[in-house]
């Protein structure tokens, strides 16, 4: 193994972390963007490398500073974390390709260096959460991510002052969530005397039936649920997504909540163990109703939105509901569906937010009333949006269909009444998706454009990355060996391993 390859797990984090302060010192509009893009691409390359190695040879463990595991900090890249790292860095790189012209319009030029340095920190934080094998380290990276994301969201302030209140709202709610996670980790440390995840897991069974551990589980699950925007803790998400700069929304929609889903998986399956989580404390009974309510109620709420970004944000909460239900099914099929949907939804939603970003770039607003007739003003962008919307509905040949197929298969596999009811609920929710997507389509194509509106496409630097995501999502909807393969591998690892 070469020097680079042997340090791969830590490189994926160190590179963006170290580049962030450098970026903060850069001035101008091009340099900070260029550096960030290169760094993110490097991180992506390393992630690909890690994923390939992991799927060939099994999990990689990396000792930070050479200190052996239970005492030092360990980084573990297993099939799940490697897959999520790939998603995060891939989405980040794609969004950055789009960022240059888009962000220059939304953030004052003198703040660009700081903006991109916050972006790099968020990236480093998310990658860190995913790869670390240390419970306290998770909290540290979580805080890095959260703090930088408050900044990034608040940067939408130039376009809409409401970005400030929504960032503040997220700050308050997010901090509560992070604190809960910290309390949970603290309780686990108190009971086991270790912070290493593998170590906690191996001692967990002995102390599982104690009150502090129960409390720890409660704190951790609620804390993660808040960061995940699980219903009913989702209030912060629509605000934050609506008012943040376009690329921040696109980046977070594809990654931030997905990382929290990863955390949920990690704690439930690796640390607590499936038997404890679903047998002893029966988390299913908590997660299942919340997930179902999430996708039914949030899809309904999305129908009544007047702002397309907000509409998509509510749809995101609904989609997170699908992932939650997938986890709560506590079967390998459900888990596969859930992990698969992390990937599929990330690529689809990012593409959608990017195309809305194009509309905002040209039309200056994401409100439906300002997007009337946008279909004839910006044909390529709007058509991209429609294709992305179809993926959200779950039309065949899109990744949304593949996710739905696996989810329905997992629910039908139960063969009981609950399974059939869940199937019906999910299909109902995708019909609600038809309605909210088609509201946009009708406004875009059937309303006449305002008289003073100019017919102009978004610049190519925005259009091309958007279409990369759109076409990419169709690729992963037709040729599913990659995403399904890795998701299955991760699921069977979680169920079988540890």
């Amino acid at each position, binding site marked *: 193994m070469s020097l680079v390859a042997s340090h791969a797990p830590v490189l994926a984090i160190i590179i963006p972390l170290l580049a962030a302060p450098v970026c903060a010192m850069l001035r101008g509009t091009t340099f900070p963007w260029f550096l960030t893009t290169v760094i993110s691409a490097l991180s992506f390359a390393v992630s690909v490398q890690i994923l390939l190695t992991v799927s060939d040879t099994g999990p990689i463990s990396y000792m930070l500073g050479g200190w052996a595991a239970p005492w030092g900090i360990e980084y573990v890249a297993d099939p799940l974390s490697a897959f999520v790292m790939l998603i995060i860095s891939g989405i980040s790189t794609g969004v950055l390709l789009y960022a240059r012209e888009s962000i220059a319009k939304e953030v004052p030029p003198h703040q660009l260096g700081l903006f991109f340095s916050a972006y790099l920190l968020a990236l480093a934080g998310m990658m860190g959460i995913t790869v670390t094998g240390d419970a306290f380290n998770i909290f540290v990276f979580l805080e890095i991510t959260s703090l930088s994301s408050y900044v990034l969201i608040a940067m939408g302030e130039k376009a809409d002052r409401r970005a400030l209140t929504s960032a503040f709202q997220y700050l308050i709610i997010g901090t509560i969530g992070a604190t809960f996670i910290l309390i949970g980790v603290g309780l686990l440390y108190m009971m086991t005397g270790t912070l290493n995840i593998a170590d906690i897991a191996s001692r967990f069974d002995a102390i599982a039936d104690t009150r502090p551990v129960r409390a720890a589980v409660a704190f951790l699950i609620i804390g993660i649920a808040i960061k995940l925007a699980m219903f009913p803790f989702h209030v912060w998400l629509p605000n934050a997504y609506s008012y943040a700069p376009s690329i921040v929304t696109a980046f977070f929609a594809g990654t931030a909540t997905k990382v929290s889903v990863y955390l949920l998986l990690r704690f439930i399956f690796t640390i607590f163990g499936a038997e404890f989580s679903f047998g002893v404390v029966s988390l299913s009974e908590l997660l299942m109703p919340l997930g179902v309510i999430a996708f039914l109620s949030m899809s309904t709420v999305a129908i009544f939105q007047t702002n397309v970004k907000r509409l998509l944000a509510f749809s995101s909460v609904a989609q997170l509901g699908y992932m939650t239900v997938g986890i709560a099914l506590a079967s390998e099929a459900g888990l596969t569906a859930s992990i698969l949907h992390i990937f599929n939804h990330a690529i689809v939603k990012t593409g959608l937010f990017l195309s809305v970003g194009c509309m905002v770039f040209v039309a200056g607003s994401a409100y439906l009333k300002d997007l009337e007739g946008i279909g004839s003003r910006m044909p390529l962008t709007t058509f991209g949006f429609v294709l992305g919307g179809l993926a959200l509905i779950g039309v*065949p040949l899109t990744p949304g269909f593949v996710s739905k197929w696996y989810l329905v298969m997992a629910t039908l596999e139960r063969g009981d009444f609950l399974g059939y009811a869940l199937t019906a609920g999910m299909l109902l929710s*995708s019909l609600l998706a*038809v309605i909210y997507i088609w509201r946009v389509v009708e406004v875009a194509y059937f309303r006449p454009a305002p008289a003073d509106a100019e017919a102009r496409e978004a610049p190519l630097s925005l259009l091309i990355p958007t279409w990369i995501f759109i076409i990419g999502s169709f690729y992963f909807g037709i040729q599913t060996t990659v995403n399904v393969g890795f998701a299955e591998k991760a699921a069977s690892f979680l169920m079988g391993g540890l």
Partner: protein
Amino acid sequence: MFAIETHVALAILIPLLGAIGIALAGKAPNIRETVTLVTAGLLFANVLTIVPHVLAGEVLVYELAAILPGLSLTLNVEPLGMTFAVVASSLWIVNSVYSIGYMRGNKENKQTRFYICFAIALSATMGIAFAGNLLTLFVFYEVLTLSTYPLVTHKGNEAALKGGRIYLGILISTSIGLLLPAIIWVWVETGTLDFTKGGILAGHFGPVASGILLFLFMYGIGKAALMPIHRWLPSAMVAPTPVSALLHAVAVVKAGVFSVLKVSIYIFGVDFLASVNTLEILTWIASFTLIAASVIAMTKDNLKARLAYSTVSQLAYIVLAASLATPMAMTGGALQIVMHAFGKITLFFCAGAIYTAVKKTEISDMRGLGRQMPVTFIAFFIGALSIIGIPPLGGSWSKFYIMLGAVEADQLFVLGVLLISSLLNIGYLMPIVIRGFFYPPLGSSDPKVAVGQEISFLSRDKIREAPILCVLPPAFTAMMCIVLFLFIDPIYQMILPIVLP
């Protein structure tokens, strides 16, 4: 030229390439229309090259993409699909000629988008015809729904928007809400979705489950327009007439009933289907749809609306045939796909020709119009007779075999239903022709003539037909209704092997 499997794949590809060509030639209407016609011709020739191989009983399989592990988009040609493909691709040529006449005659806008969507819809239709498993069928079924939406809403006004909403709403919600779970259910229980002769369900589904599954399929395939989910079909009549003609008489609705037959024959299997205990309910529902739609058709004064309800009724014949679950009935259902396609497209072509020539849509305004447009009205007359099922027109064969099937299944009341329906058909189709020829035009009256001194009110100088491109196609398809009566045997021989055990 290529391996024969490649020709199967080309059937999907040719219209898609045509769509790209149409898009590129969008600025030059003459070249664009040439591309459409050439594509349609190529597709038809391509489909014809496959026919002899199917007749010889070859197995033609082409895998497009592995969409899920163990499940791929596969094309597999069998006689039923072959028949459907030949019908759809041959009528596309006729319809393209007609479209050009109609769209130019009415100076419609966004014609490039119109021809592109048409080509994509045809590609999807070929995919449905040649689908090798349920997943492939489902994929192309959805593509067909989505690619026809812009055609239905072509006019872009409030009515089009509303019609489009109902169209998409019903078709998508039934397919995602009922058909998809049915497919996944079959997959979970049997582990395969391949269309297999004799069906795949036997031994995997119990009496209750199979009863439910039958209805998931029959209502999931919303394009078959079984009541009460038929509303989309009349709504879709806001589309320009060529769209109504090809898509709502041939491709879309036929894709629906074709899927019904395909599922009945290759998923349930004729024998297993006959043992499903809810089958008789389906027979009753289909019978009800058949008669109720005819009755509604009589109340409609708008010609296209009347034809739409007539289509709902005629589609129910095929569902009825499937629900009888006997070889003869299935054959009759398959023949009905062909016969109704030629008959109904003739009627729609005539409706469009009338609209193009005199901008009339209501039947009550069409008095005496036959004297002005005799070719159109004669074609309409022939098409109508075929729909009614009177020899020597093709439509009589399908009714004949369905009746045989009803006797075979021992469901004699079906004979009565078919009889009443045929009478109703006469009741709502013939008045149009009678008004056209025997009534004086609006605002005038014929001179009284003594018995034995009758004169013809047809005169050469009063004839003002629609543009020639709008008149030739219905004349041609009306001729085909007669030809099909005489040359039924090859089609019959092709279909028979798949329904016999």
